Structures are given as C-alpha cells and as structure tokens.
C-alpha cells in the first residue's frame, strides 16, 4: 500500500481485511492508536462539507 515509505498512514489499511471477530482480538494500544489518528488527523468537528451560496453563478 502507498502508506509505506511515509509516515502519513493512519493504520486503517492494515485493519481493512479484519472481521469484527478478529478486531475484537486486537490489543487496546494498537486500536486506540489508529482511532486517535483517524479522529485527530481529520478533526472530529470539521468533517461536514456544506454548500449554500457557493453554487451561485455556477451556470453563468
């Protein structure tokens, strides 16, 4: 996966093949590390993308 070589990866890629049952076996530290990266990298409160007036003029 493209994450290798950089430290940009959140760690989600490595968990992608796991089922819920397998995920339950994951140690707390690893699970929390990925979740923290997901939430902090994106910012929990700022992931809502809204448009009201920016489409004005779109049709020329």
């Amino acid at each position: 996966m493209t994450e290798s070589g950089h430290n940009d990866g959140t760690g989600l890629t490595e968990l992608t093949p796991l089922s819920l049952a397998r995920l339950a076996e994951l140690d707390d530290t690893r699970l929390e590390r990925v979740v923290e990266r997901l939430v902090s990298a994106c910012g929990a409160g700022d992931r809502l993308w809204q448009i009201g007036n920016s489409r004005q003029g779109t049709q020329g």
Partner: protein
Amino acid sequence: VNQPLSAADLSGLARGIVTPETVVRLNGAQLAKHQLLVETVRRRAAHTQPSATVATLTRAVELLAEIQGQYPAVVNELLALPQIGSWAISCLDRMRGGERLDAGYLARLAAVAAVRAGRKRDVPAAENGRTLFPGLGVQHGTRWTPIPRLRVRAGDLGLSVHLDATDPYLGMYGRRTRPNPPEWRDRLTGAWRVLVHRHRPAAQALAVGLKTLVPLAEPMSGPPLSAASGWAYGAVAASLPADSLILAEILVHEFQHLTLGAVEDLVALTRADDKRLWYAPWRDDPRPLSALLQGCYAFLGITEFWRAERNSGPPEHSRGAEAAFARWRRATLEAAQTLHDADGLTVTGRTFAAGIRERLEPWMAEKVSADAERYAARVCAEHRARWDRTNANAGVSRASARR
C-alpha cells in the same frame, strides 16, 4: 473483497480519477473504519457507561460478529451504512462529555442483521412507541414505515439509494424534510440520465459508492443546499433542486468530498497541527488547509462536470456551462496554487495538490469564448474583493493573499 487501496488507485485519485474498482476498495476501507469505531465504542464504554449499556453493546457486537461469520454480506452491508460512522463518532463524543450513549441503536442494527439472516430467536420483542431500525424503517406500534428506496436506471447503469429523513445519525447536515419520494425519484431519474450519458466515470463511481440521500428542507431563497460528512461515507444530503442538472452537479460535488474523506481516513493529507486559515474562492469564510484541499478536490470534479456540459444541449446551455467551466477552472487552480505554496501538506497531500494542478493545466489551455473568460475573471475578482473586505482582520495566512 476488502482489499487495500493500491498505489495505482492513489495515483489516480490524486488527479481526481476515480474508477469503480477504486471506489470498491474505498468502500472496504470505510467498512473497516466503521468496524473499528464500533469496537472502540464497545471497549471505551466498558470504562465509562452503566452496566446495562455495556451489556447491550456487547451483545449487539457479539451478535453482529457471529452473523458476520455466517453471512458476511448481510452484516457488511449494514455496518457500511453511512449512519453507523456518525453514530459511533457521536458515541465517542458523548463518552468524552460524560454522557450516556445510545446503545439501543446498535442493538437494533444487530436485530436487522438477525432478521436478514433468518435468526428469529435473536430478534427482540417489539418495543412500545416508535422504534427505528437503521437502514430499514420505523416501527410505530403495529404500523411499519419502511425507509424509501429510489432505484433509477439509464442505459446499462443503475443506482439504488435510500431516501432517509428519519435516522437520527443523519441529522447533522441541517433541517430535514419529509420527502415526497415520487418527486425525488423523478429528479434523480433526470440527474442519473445526465450523469450516465455525459459524465460516465462519475456515474460509475456513484453507482458503487452512493448509498443514501438525505432530504434537506428547501432554503427560503437562493440555490439548493447540499452537504456531506466525513463520518457518514456514502450519504449525500441535499434540498430538492428544481432542475435535474443541478442534482447531478450536487452528486458529483458531494461525492468528491466523500472520496477524498475516505482517502484521508487511510493517509493523512494535511498536518494536524496546522491551524492557519486560507482564502477559498468558493467560500465567504477563511478555511483551514484540510478544508481548502477538500474544496479544491470537489471543484476539480465540478470543473470537469461543466467542461463536459459545454458540449451538450442547446446554445444557451452550452454558453452557461462554458462560463461555469471558465470560472471553476480558474478558481480551482488558484486554490491548488495556495495548497502548493502553503507548506502544510504531508507527502501524500502534496501529491494530491500536484495531481489537481496536473489535471487542470490542459483545461486551462482550452479555448473558451471571450465572454466566458471575462465573466470568470470578473466573478473571481469580485469574490476575492468581497472576501478581503469581510475578512480583513480574520488572521488569515499571508500567503493566501497572493492572486
């Protein structure tokens, strides 16, 4: 089925090229994210929630895991619902605030899985009052109201989505309205025809990735509203536009956000500690770098949309499309330049900023009428001047002042 994103996927995504195969892999990563968040909710709840809540959650997760072992497609489809991500994030927020979380919601999701898997013994007895079953419908006493599903088709390509005005975890976009499904079906049919016949790659991506439409109340005036959330992959919220073409544009725009959001879940694109704010040519307020990148990606899709629209319909349609193309290619390139100069992107984020510019450059060289070019220059300049007046003291980063 759950395959990770490849280097080729990411290289295409950086330039805004989204194949159905890439979307399938993003879908898989989003399912993994939802599973991870659900499991995190279960674990954190054990330390913070009353024992009854913990027991409900644990039973629900165990039941889902058990059914997933036998019928993975049933449980995967349910866990991938957009609202499962926003439910889990809401639980994490509530726990941080010392509040009680909504464990019954996951129990009802597990009940839906049990029904679908034919495990009647695991379906709880009907509750009094109104009970929502995620992705399925609402039980009110003996009355059952299913969540409407819209199925549309154009040529060889179909789209099937929920029209969900009910689920509490799809309420973050704004005020919802009780939809009129036939009206939505009509508008979506028209939008889908436009997408399949004139924007086939976007239609192919949407066919695989779009799961839910959330109907928003129409604004008192002005253009329709639309929104998407990085915690609800697969859902697009919109007020019903009068014109199918605008619904098509909304779907393209919002799906670009969802796509980049799904990438961001796998690879950080901006530095989390960068708190600077920037000018975005489509917003009245200063934006953080991550939001500027999101907007840039969405408007790359919109530029491509109007570029294709120039070659269809009657002359007045082509002229309008040409003006929109001229405006958004200019605005998007300006934002891409800001991203490039900002020094707040990760290595992968820089690949995306470069990819967006690489995609735009040949479009910048395409000839448009003098009227369209003048319109684009004037609208962009007016927006910037208005923005400068409004945000003169907003502490915006200096580099963003460049034209």
